[in-house]
């Protein structure tokens, strides 16, 4: 008889793994609904935590919203806070599209900070635009190069990128701390921090009398850049192919190793750019122990945004709002600032749970459809 090939994988065709399902929601409406539900549950659970300190969560959240939207300054601040988060979110999300785990955005961010502050301090007297372009490029390049080392280790030695990028963050931290205590220390030499950078290197404000600066627009452009690369270029095509099936990519003549380096270069560039935003846009100096969770928050934002550049922008704005509202509540009540971390953590956990529930729903719906079809067939 004409053989059908002997190594059958029964039912392989019609069934998918869970992760594939995760990426494949049903309709566009669900895309928004589930994250919203997760955010709601996350805030609800955080509210329960507030009860522990004797606060009425409804009041707290009411205050939060009121404070955050009380005046233009605070509204603008939401977007100012979102700016670096968009970029660290992209740093994780972009690599995630290639199923690479860039846990080292924190370190790449620090390298970006160092590059930006170094250029800003050493380019006194030059026109503002030139200084800004140099600072921006330097932070992107240094962050990117630092990240690409991880990609290189992965490509050349098949090292575990998760572990290496994690370790590289601590090395970057040590380098930054050394520079802050030595070569870059302020004139007074008292604290491990730099001098304030000259005003010519500050990113111009987008709205007067707020902290919102042009960096937000640049971050939006970066998100669009990420989207464009991924879905409009051959490079992005290859990146996604490597991410979804590394083996098939190899058979298709795609050199995954090259992709690893490029992806980490771009991802690191995003994180480095976040450094420029924080140094030249907000802090106007570099201080030791600065923004220690921005990398991890980027991961959460990327997950909440389904690793899609536009989803990341929205999630980053949400996290920005939590921060602004949370900070204001913290300042005006006895709730500690760690409540912001709790809110972020809860939201992330509920997002992950929602993946599971969505999967269950789609499985049982599929079963029901089959049963219905079968009954229809018997009639």
């Amino acid at each position, binding site marked *: 008889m004409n053989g059908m090939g002997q190594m059958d994988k029964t039912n392989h065709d019609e069934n998918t793994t869970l992760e594939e399902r995760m990426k494949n929601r049903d309709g566009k409406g669900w895309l928004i609904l589930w994250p919203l539900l997760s955010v709601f549950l996350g805030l609800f659970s955080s509210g329960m935590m507030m009860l522990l300190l004797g606060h009425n969560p409804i009041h707290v959240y009411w205050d939060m919203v009121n404070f955050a939207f009380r005046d233009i300054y605070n509204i603008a601040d939401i977007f100012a806070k979102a700016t670096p988060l968009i970029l660290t979110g992209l740093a994780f999300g972009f690599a995630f599209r290639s199923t690479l785990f860039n846990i080292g955005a924190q370190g790449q961010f620090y390298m970006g900070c160092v590059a930006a502050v170094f250029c800003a301090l050493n380019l006194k007297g030059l026109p503002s635009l030139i200084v800004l372009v140099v600072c921006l490029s330097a932070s992107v390049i240094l962050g990117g190069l630092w990240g690409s080392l991880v990609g290189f280790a992965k490509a050349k030695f098949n090292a*575990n990128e998760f572990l290496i990028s994690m370790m590289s963050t601590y090395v970057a931290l040590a380098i930054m*701390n050394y520079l802050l205590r030595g070569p870059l220390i302020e004139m007074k030499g008292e604290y491990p921090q730099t001098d304030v950078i000259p005003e010519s290197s500050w990113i111009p404000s987008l709205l007067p009398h707020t902290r919102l600066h042009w960096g937000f627009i640049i971050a939006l452009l970066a998100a669009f850049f990420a989207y464009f690369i991924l879905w409009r270029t051959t490079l992005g095509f290859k990146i996604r192919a490597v991410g979804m099936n590394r083996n098939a990519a190899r058979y298709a003549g795609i050199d995954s190793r090259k992709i690893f380096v490029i992806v980490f270069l771009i991802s690191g560039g995003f994180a480095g750019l976040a450094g420029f935003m924080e140094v030249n846009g907000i802090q106007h100096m570099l201080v030791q122990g600065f923004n220690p*969770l921005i990398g991890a928050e980027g*991961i959460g934002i990327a997950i909440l945004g389904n690793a899609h550049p536009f989803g990341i922008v929205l999630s980053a704005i949400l996290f920005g709002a939590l921060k602004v509202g949370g900070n204001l509540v913290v300042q005006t009540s006895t709730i500690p600032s760690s409540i912001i971390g709790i809110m*972020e953590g809860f939201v992330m956990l509920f997002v992950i*749970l929602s993946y599971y529930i969505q999967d269950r729903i789609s499985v049982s719906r599929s079963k029901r459809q089959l049963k219905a079809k079968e009954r229809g067939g018997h009639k």
Partner: protein
Amino acid sequence: MILTGLLARALQMSTPLMIGSLAEVFAERTGVMIIAIEGIFLLGAWGGFVGAYLSGNLFLGLLFAMFVGTCVAAIYGVMTIKLKQHQIVTGTAINIFAVGIGLYLYRVLFGVPLLPLTVDPLRNIPLPFLSRIPIIGEAFFTQNILTYIALLLMPIGCWILFRTRLGLIIRSTGENPEAVDSAGLNVEKVRLLTVLAAGAMDGLAGAFYSIGFLGLYTNDIIGGRGWIAFAICFLGNWNPMGAFLGALVFGLADATAIVIQTSGFKLIPNEFLIAIPYILTIIATISRKHFNVPAVLGTPYIKERK
């Protein structure tokens, strides 16, 4: 004198790394990476301090730390093993959450004390006879109870993993879960129970930082040490003895940095010494083939969907 101090310190610093990396070895042998290890360390430290402070008993503090570690591991385990969510993603979420909740609950319990609250840390227990051996006696046999426990756990871990049926099951689960399933064992149960046990050990390891020698809790008390334990598991080739050696090396590097820092030796910037363990990890990771890596590490077992 310096040598004794250095060795003693090295052993002390490597104690939690031994416990944590051993726990990681067991979990990863079943195919589950405990990415939440940093968070479990942190909440273990929190639990240890809180338990000890409130009860006034260090032993109860250790028990509470193990309990907290088990609880966090249970959340992580259920989400990654039962609900089959991504380990790195879930672990990261828990790590972020741990930072927030640790500080928050500290605040809930103790308000804002003017001075950091402290407990008396674990005392060193000189072992009879052995502690009198010159140089190494004081270094190795005048340690606190956790160090002795860690030193005992390493050979016990080795024995369980390689000499018992339980160990065989654990190793098999990470290599071919379908074989384990087909042999009539419950893959998810094996994984979950191992992760719970590992969580208890990670909690204990975390408690070492709070009540093992400092006697207080701060939110940056772990500072990446959980990741080091995680890395040691890789470096130790998923073998308890490898983990033991790895932990000693890291402990020694850590101790050297502290000794040099306090001795006023200024030739090498302190930051570089701090960075050395991490650089070592990177070098070791890229220069060695991981021939022992469990075959299905990091992937959930999906039974009914081929």
